[in-house]
């Protein structure tokens, strides 16, 4: 249920950005229904159905256990829990930080790759490798590499660079979630970069050459030509990544601290509690995550529309 909640807004985000460059061919409504019907049906059934079931359970509807009355008590208990703020802040910090770092690196990387041109095919092939590796695998790799008794620490201490393995800085299960950030940044850079590359390659050189003849320096060309062109894609892909990171479970589960927990881990912990009465609370937290993601996606879509509208006016 939680997963479905994360997928949906992502699809919205990417679809909306795809229509930013319309190809001008109107598709008849009937054909559109046939084309989109199956997908909408599946998403509707699984996602909306799951959501409805989830809401019912979060409202305490559990006929198997004799609880058949609806109550907002579970939502209330989650909302008044002081953990909620800590947990939300931590989740937001992880999602936002990793997205921003990945975004910045990706812009630099994409620009470099476009200017390399001839070699970029090889590099974009390399870029696709991280896309296929599951988050879980990277998380475990990070665990083996970066713990104070991990490979890196051992290599350093055997080279005499560290007094002892224990003096290695804490990078996993640490306060700032460095291990978690490392995994997400590593996974997200290729994704955002590939999205940007597509736009940058389409853009061609003409605009930049025109800028150059008008004596715009490199900085001005970047801020006044390149950046406005890549902004919608950058924003859209950043948003997908943010939404995914915000709702993802396995990496913080493996690399996070016992406390405070990220929202998805908290939701899972509560849901799988041996005390079955804690279940609705777990679902309530999951629904909160879904709501936050949906709101985030909605807000950014509004901002993007506003930007596009202004551009159109000019």
């Amino acid at each position: 249920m939680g997963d479905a909640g994360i997928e949906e807004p992502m699809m919205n985000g990417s679809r909306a950005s795809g229509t930013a460059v319309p190809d001008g061919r109107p598709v008849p409504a009937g054909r559109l229904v046939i084309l989109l019907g199956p997908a909408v049906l599946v998403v509707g059934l699984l996602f909306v159905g799951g959501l409805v079931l989830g809401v019912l359970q979060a409202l305490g509807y559990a006929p198997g256990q004799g609880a058949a009355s609806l109550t907002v008590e579970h939502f209330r208990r989650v909302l008044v829990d002081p953990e909620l703020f800590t947990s939300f802040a931590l989740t937001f910090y992880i999602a936002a930080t990793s997205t921003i770092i990945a975004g910045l690196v990706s812009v630099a990387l994409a620009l470099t790759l476009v200017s390399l041109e001839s070699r970029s095919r090889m590099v974009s092939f390399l870029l696709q490798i991280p896309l296929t590796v599951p988050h879980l695998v990277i998380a475990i790799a990070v665990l083996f590499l970066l713990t104070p008794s991990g490979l890196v620490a051992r290599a350093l201490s055997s080279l005499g660079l560290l007094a002892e393995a224990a003096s290695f800085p804490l990078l996993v299960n640490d306060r700032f979630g460095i291990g978690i950030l490392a995994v997400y940044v590593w996974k997200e850079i290729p994704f955002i970069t590939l999205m940007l590359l597509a736009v940058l390659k389409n853009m061609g050189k003409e605009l930049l050459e025109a800028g150059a003849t008008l004596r715009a320096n490199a900085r001005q060309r970047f801020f006044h030509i390149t950046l406005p062109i890549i902004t919608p894609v950058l924003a859209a892909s950043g948003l997908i990544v943010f939404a995914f990171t915000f709702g993802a479970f396995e990496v913080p589960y493996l690399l996070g601290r016992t406390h405070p927990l990220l929202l998805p881990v908290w939701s899972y912990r509560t849901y799988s509690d041996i005390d079955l009465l804690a279940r609705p609370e777990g679902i309530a937290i999951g629904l909160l995550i879904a709501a936050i993601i949906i709101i985030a996606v909605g807000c950014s879509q509004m901002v993007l529309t506003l930007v596009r509208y202004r551009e159109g006016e000019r």
Partner: protein
Amino acid sequence: MSNGFSTIREIFGRRLPWWVGLSLLLVGLVVEQAWAQVLTWDEAVVEARGQTVDWYMWGGSPAVNAYVNGYLARELKARYDITLRQVPVKDIAEVVSKLVVEKQAGKDSGGSVDLMWINGENFRTCIRHNLLYGPFADLLPNQHYVDWSSPTVANDFGTPVEGMESPWGSAQVVMIYDAARIPEPPRSMQALLDWIKANPGRFSYPAPPDFTGSVFIRHIFYHVGGPAEWWQGDYTEAELQAAADATFEVLRDLRPSLWRGGSTYPDSPVRMNTLFADGEIDFSFSYHQGEASRAIHDGLFPETVRTFVFNEGTIANTHFVAIPFNARDKAAAMVVADFLLFPEAQREKAVPEVWGDFPVISRDRLPPEWQQRFADLKRGPATLEDSVLQSHQLPEPPSEILIHLEQGWEMQVLKNR
């Protein structure tokens, strides 16, 4: 409650006839379920042929997995034509949750879980929510090797077993240390607590509700809250609260002296063992008497690793297997549960290089030649003598206390509220 019902009625009002129909259908299914009888042993053996048993169990131990997928799977195929499939899970509570969902959804047959390795709080949850098939354990022929008069077998964390689960093995907590690092370990809980404070950062325990972490909390509970026997009988809510608060006080006090200043905990005994093997911490502990020997055999621990029990004793219990109410292959699951108690299977399991789990069958109930075979079993270098272990056993507290302690730990020790 009545308010709630009226709300539901408002919501489903227009579709009420449809709901009534569905409810009648469900009632029908329940009635049919009540009519279904538990299979007799003879029926089970015949029906079991060719069935596949999906056994959901904790999959964190390579030794256990090897025993199940190797010896057990091979023998069951050869003897009964049963295919045994191990489904490893991190925590059997996940499976219990799954069963609850299936119960809610009315999936009363054809469930994917045929057998589960279970005890304590999970067993209690299953009994409460009627998630088990049975009573079946009394029907198994090999049960006569089990001494049911022993309270640790007849009760599972204070919940009467009553044939709803079948015993598989017994376990006792042992402390693990490396004699090369610490020649003379602290042999009582008080001595251990003093040692931890004197050596900050060198001790940790898995965060409850992990099973192994949670048993450490219970040792502290017995240490500050009074003798183990006392908690088996009648105690008041206030007495429990007072003892639990004292326990959390000790743990909070201990926290700054733990690994990484108690800012985080290992998430599992496997992780704790890794930290121990890597020299990040100086102790590990296990709810398995033979685990340290096993780890030495696997090359995970150095040869100098040894175990000890506290002078005041360590907690011991029996672990069981149970069959879910909606298991697809109940007959074969019964046969598997029976085979687990077969002397040869119990002996194989007790071999240190295989697993080193302690037999649940009582030695005096075996034929003389089997008694001898069990007596001849060699133990691993780090495993204590049976006599030492058995004279230092404490019973598990009722699972209400366990749940109270786990929840309290999370609030008071982890979150410090």
